[in-house]
């Protein structure tokens, strides 16, 4: 089964998944820190608050993950970060993610965990740095 990942399409798709997951995370960071896109829930977030610190991780991690720089360590930190977000913000509301609003955090957590092992794929700064 490991030969499947070695096909060129599989690896390109890995990079596409990385870029869209990174962009999706990045907008949470920009919404909290920069107020764009304007989200009522995140207006006037203090940078030193828990939500603000989460926003910083999402902003920096989202940029690094999108361009594919230091992908594995960044993915490891983001995976832990989203796991914490799930258990702190969502798990207490209900056991089922569909009821506690945490399915996005749960999904992020496992997608990032996968990237710890899979790496960034060919369309990434990591891949460019390796070629040099």
């Amino acid at each position: 089964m490991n030969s499947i990942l070695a096909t060129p399409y599989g690896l390109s798709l890995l990079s596409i998944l990385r870029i869209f997951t990174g962009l999706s995370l990045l907008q949470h960071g920009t919404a909290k820190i920069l107020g764009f896109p304007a989200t009522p829930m995140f207006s006037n977030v203090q940078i030193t608050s828990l939500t603000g610190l989460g926003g910083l991780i999402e902003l920096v991690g989202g940029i690094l993950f999108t361009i594919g720089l230091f992908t594995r360590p960044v993915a490891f930190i983001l995976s832990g970060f989203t796991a914490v977000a799930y258990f702190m913000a969502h798990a207490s509301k209900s056991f089922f993610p569909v009821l506690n609003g945490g399915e996005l955090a749960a999904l992020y957590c496992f997608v990032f965990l996968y990237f710890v092992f899979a790496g960034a794929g060919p369309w990434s700064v990591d891949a460019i740095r390796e070629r040099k």
Partner: protein
Amino acid sequence: MEPSTVWAPRVLSVLRIVVGLVLLQYGLAKLFGWPAVKMFQDLPWLSLFGIAGMFELIGGTLLILGLFTRPAAFILSGEMAAAYFIEHFPRSFFPIQSEGDLAVTLCFTFLYLSFAGGGPLSLDALLLSKANLRPDMSRG
């Protein structure tokens, strides 16, 4: 950077199972009302949401088992793209404002699974290894 050849496929299987579970609860909530979600109460099965629920119920089950992973993931990827553009995109360009981030992330995760397959912890792998056994046995 090359994927880890041992652990990347295993974690791919774990990702597949989690994504399948996330999707399955939407199918259950829409068709059987459990877990009880207000938005999905008393949906007719033949409405747009009900049909989406059938995709999610059957597709989610297949993904968890890892049976027909590639075709199932391909169809679900299309379903999520449709869900995003019908339900979320008209509200705002940014997924965080249209609440479509889950649909986008699911769409691309399914697209990846349709190319990468289900990994070693799947019925697909089990069936494939059985199919591969036969020529070996005939060779003696």
